[in-house]
């Protein structure tokens, strides 16, 4: 293995001091002279036509400076992706309880809230549809009856609530099922999930003296916010500067335009800066969470344990507006396995609920719960050890992945072996205790990435990227620059960026920053180093390839005293024929580079209450190279905790009649706390990636995928009951122990209808 000077060391975060002293500034910390406060009126109806909105009483309230409704915005739809299916503020209709209908700017927050209460909206109710399986059916109430007229519209099927259908096929599935020794089918259902970030959405907008708009935002994607904001305000994006502030958690929820348009328009109307901070209740009701995913899986297996065919139908509820997730229905329908014949379908269905948002590899955790529970069920039914069954079918280097790409070298088998060894599997546990495993995979995030590095006269370097720091990514980028430039971490200044200052880059999400943005930093650092070497070679009169660098110096390899420090070279460069030293890099995407994680849970089940106690959690991930092992471990643990919450307690509940969120608070939406967790055991294997910076791989997404299936499988091992619906609550486990049907319903009938629509035999 390569020896590193900076990487593979536990370096403290570059922003540790400002974070622990409370000096780091978040969007809510921005205070400007004359700043007004914004509050939002939320729809009280699930599905209704807006007959009229009377804002006169609100406008007359002393302290109120402006009130806006959908009519104040240009009549332009936008969307999370290509399909533009929503207005930034409701225009003629509301599609869910909680949808913003009007916004107020007032001199203080309480006046703004009072003004909200004075706005009269007259609605004419329409029939809502809340259940995605009902929404799929022909004849269901149509959420977007004019969908065909929307920009980016692709197709509709029958009722028109299906806004996406993705497919992936290979081989002859029906033939393979007919020839398989066994065929198994299962239906699984995951639950609604809130991202649970601690910092609510917040932003401040101000119109500058030159007429440009500045927005300080809590966002993972400043360039995405800029583009979408320009679109809904119908102004050139060059008129907008987005300043991403410190991020108090996003997990995907802050990838796109959220509420920035309201303060922006109110600032344009009043001439004053306007701030908006969501309440926690608004975070739950107005801001896209994840909706339940229903998964039907059918698998053909031979007696030797080889999987020969898979059919998967996944139904994503996207709420009122299409968002992320459906891609994972086909991208992760096989799991981490090589399956020669498959038919995968992924449907997105509209319902009258809050629109779906992104969350830590949207949809993949739902897919992993289904696939890895199904794998466990099959292993037990054919009498094979669950780990051996996985290993037998695991995808290997050279196989062709579901997306058609060749699988590169990877550490999947090493991860399974490490978990097996740590726990001593297979293992007999006492009565009421059990162990379960899950295998997770993620394709790694890529996308456009840029970086620029300039060398300062004191030998430090300034690193500029457009990416927002997310779970310590600035520290990792600084480490990569330091390693490549032969300097210490403390010699790298990470610039605070905004959209005017930094070159365009993709958002901070999808485990993309270290892997892809880090690659751009590595390349920019190489460019910088080449320029440093060229200048040194010129001044020393030696060829550049005779030079090496270490500890902040560039010198002749055979004669170390002959050389210059980076500071000396930077000072010389100013008047050299090359000019000041600036390195930069841009890349569009990187080849497919899956990352794998094996996870295992040990549980104890209380047979009288059904309560599941997690007693041990082990995970092993192939990280390629650990840029900063302490930070990698932190991400792996954090991800596992989110997955454990998803497995056991987190559950966004929606009213079955109205679609309203029933538990919009941290008192009723239960994320795990320290007392609920065992010591997390985190292992890493290092099979360097082919393209990542110094061989590093994406880290953040996979750890959260495994816990629901690993824990469900452990419950089965402990007490012999199979729970196919999340969360794995005491109530569900107890019902299953008593043989009562707490299980998710089989969705065969719905599938027949879908298959007929597709022209397949029902």
């Amino acid at each position: 293995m390569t020896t590193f000077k900076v990487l593979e060391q536990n370096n403290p975060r570059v922003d540790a001091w400002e974070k622990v002293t409370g000096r780091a500034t978040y969007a809510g910390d921005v205070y400007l002279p004359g700043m007004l406060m914004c509050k939002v009126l939320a729809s009280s109806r699930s599905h209704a036509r807006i007959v009229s909105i009377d804002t006169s009483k609100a406008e007359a309230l002393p302290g109120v400076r402006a009130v806006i409704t959908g009519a104040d915005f240009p009549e332009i739809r936008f969307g999370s992706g290509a399909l533009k299916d929503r207005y930034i503020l409701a225009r003629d209709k509301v599609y869910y309880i909680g949808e913003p209908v009007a916004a107020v700017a007032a001199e203080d927050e309480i006046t703004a809230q009072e003004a909200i209460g004075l706005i009269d909206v007259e609605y004419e109710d329409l029939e809502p549809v809340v259940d995605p399986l009902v929404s799929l059916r022909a004849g269901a109430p149509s959420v977007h009856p004019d969908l065909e007229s929307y920009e980016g519209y692709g197709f509709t099927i029958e009722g028109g609530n299906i806004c996406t259908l993705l497919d992936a096929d290979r081989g002859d599935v029906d033939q393979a099922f007919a020839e398989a020794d066994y065929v198994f089918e299962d239906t699984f259902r995951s639950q609604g999930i809130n991202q649970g970030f601690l910092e609510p959405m917040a932003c401040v907008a101000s119109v500058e003296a030159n007429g440009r708009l500045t927005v300080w935002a809590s966002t993972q994607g400043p360039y995405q916010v800029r583009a979408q904001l320009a679109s809904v305000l119908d102004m050139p994006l060059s008129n907008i500067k987005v300043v991403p502030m410190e991020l108090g958690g996003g997990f995907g929820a802050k990838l796109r335009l959220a509420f920035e348009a309201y303060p922006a328009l109110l600032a344009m109307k009043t001439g004053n800066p306007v701030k908006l901070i969501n309440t926690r209740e608004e975070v739950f009701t107005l801001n896209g969470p994840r909706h339940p995913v229903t998964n039907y899986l059918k698998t053909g297996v031979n007696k030797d344990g080889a999987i020969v065919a898979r059919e998967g139908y996944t139904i994503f509820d996207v709420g009122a507006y299409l968002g992320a997730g459906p891609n994972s229905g086909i991208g992760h329908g096989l799991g981490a396995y090589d399956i020669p014949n498959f038919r995968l379908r992924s449907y997105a269905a509209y319902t009258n609920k809050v629109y779906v948002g992104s969350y830590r590899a949207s949809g993949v955790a739902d897919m992993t719960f289904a696939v890895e529970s199904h794998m466990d069920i099959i292993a037990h039914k054919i009498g094979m050890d669950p780990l051996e069954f996985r290993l037998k079918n695991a995808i290997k280097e050279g196989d062709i992945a579901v997306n058609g790409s060749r699988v590169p070298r990877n550490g999947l088998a090493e991860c399974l072996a490490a978990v097996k060894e740590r726990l001593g599997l297979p293992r007999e546990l006492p009565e009421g205790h059990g162990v379960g495993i899950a295998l997770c995979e993620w394709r790694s995030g890529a996308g456009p990435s840029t970086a620029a590095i300039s060398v300062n006269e004191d030998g430090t370097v300034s690193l500029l990227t457009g990416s927002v720091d997310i779970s310590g990514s600035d520290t990792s980028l600084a480490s990569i620059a330091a390693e490549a430039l032969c300097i210490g971490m403390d010699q790298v200044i990470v610039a605070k960026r905004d959209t005017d200052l930094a070159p365009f880059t993709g958002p901070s999400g999808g485990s993309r920053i270290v892997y892809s943005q880090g690659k751009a930093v590595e390349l920019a650092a190489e460019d910088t180093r080449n320029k440093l070497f060229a200048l040194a070679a010129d001044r020393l009169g030696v060829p550049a390839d005779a030079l090496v660098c270490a500890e902040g110096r560039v010198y002749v390899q055979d004669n170390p005293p002959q050389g210059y420090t980076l500071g000396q070279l930077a000072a010389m460069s100013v008047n050299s024929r090359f000019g000041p030293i600036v390195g930069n890099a841009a890349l569009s995407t990187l080849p497919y580079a899956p990352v794998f994680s094996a996870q295992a849970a040990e549980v104890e089940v209380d047979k009288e209450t059904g309560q599941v106690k997690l007693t041990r959690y082990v995970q092993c991930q192939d990280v390629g190279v650990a840029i900063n092992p302490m930070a990698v471990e932190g991400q792996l643990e954090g991800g596992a905790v989110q997955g454990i919450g998803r497995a056991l307690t987190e559950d966004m509940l929606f009213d079955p009649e109205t679609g309203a969120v029933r538990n919009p608070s941290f008192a009723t939406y239960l994320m795990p706390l320290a007392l609920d967790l065992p010591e997390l055991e985190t292992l890493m294997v290092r099979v360097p990636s082919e393209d990542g910076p110094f061989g590093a791989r994406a880290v953040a997404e996979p750890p959260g995928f495994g816990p629901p299936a690993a824990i469900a499988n452990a419950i089965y091992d402990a007490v012999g009951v199979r729970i196919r619906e999340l969360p794995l609550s005491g109530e569900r486990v107890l019902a299953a122990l008593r043989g009562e049907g707490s299980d998710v319903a089989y969705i065969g009938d719905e599938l027949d209808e879908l298959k007929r629509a597709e022209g397949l035999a029902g």
Partner: protein
Amino acid sequence: MLRFDFLNARNLRHAISLLERHGDEARAVAGSTDFLVRWRQSGPGRWRPAFVVNIKGLSGLGRITYSPQNGLRLGALATVQAIETNAQVRRRYQALATGATSFAGVQVRNLATVGGNVCNASPAGDTLPALLAFDAQCAIVGPEGPRMLPLTEFFQGPGRTALQQGELLTQLTLPPPTPRTGSIYIKHSPRGAMDIATVGVASVITLEEDGATCKDARIALGAVGPVPFRASEAENLLKGRELSPDALGQAAEAARNAATPIDDVRGTAAYRKDMVEALTRRTLQHALRIAGGQRVPFEEQRRLAVQTAF
């Protein structure tokens, strides 16, 4: 209205006059751990008083005293943390100490008061089953002077109490336990801390001198009816009997039958009834151990009380 006038009560008389003057428009607060949450929320159940009367500064209402003659006296402003860590409470009123330790988290326990927990009158209040099981009496002071009321009569419905306009709860009195008494509170909630009880059960067992026959049994249930209440039929099944596993099982079943829970976001009525039975049996088993003289360290009691850490 989100706006309110914040009125600092200088003394008990001042507090009473403020509450009397502003009536339904006023709300008394001490730790404010319930108030701030309910004030911020927008949906049903929100509190939007025009006047907030701060009684936290009233002197003398935070004391916890014990004497063999008078039993335990809890000033209404005693914090849940003070009750949890009080040596006499831990020694003689285990169900109250375990009720307190299962309450929210340390930061909230440091602010929340027992008087607030009682006056909030949530069916799920964690100190309430133990207070009921120990036959707590409420000392109330109002414009007409002081009065005493058994806690069983204090709760009128979810969030509703017997307090009249201008009245304040000032103290709770728990009679001294007789020898050979043991008790415990067990809470069922999905999370190990910072969670509201799906079901809470407190049981108190007093044994006869023979160490086997039940002299007295008291069982109180939380979160399974409009108010926390005593399961009298279950208690009567145990009094005068030898406490065999069968006897405990019958009492647990009677407690289950006494419960009238609802379906809500924390669980269905059916599951709550199941939990009443399981938790009643468990509380009786542990109360019996303690009554029989077995030493159960507080840390073990704590693990028992918080169901997730069974």
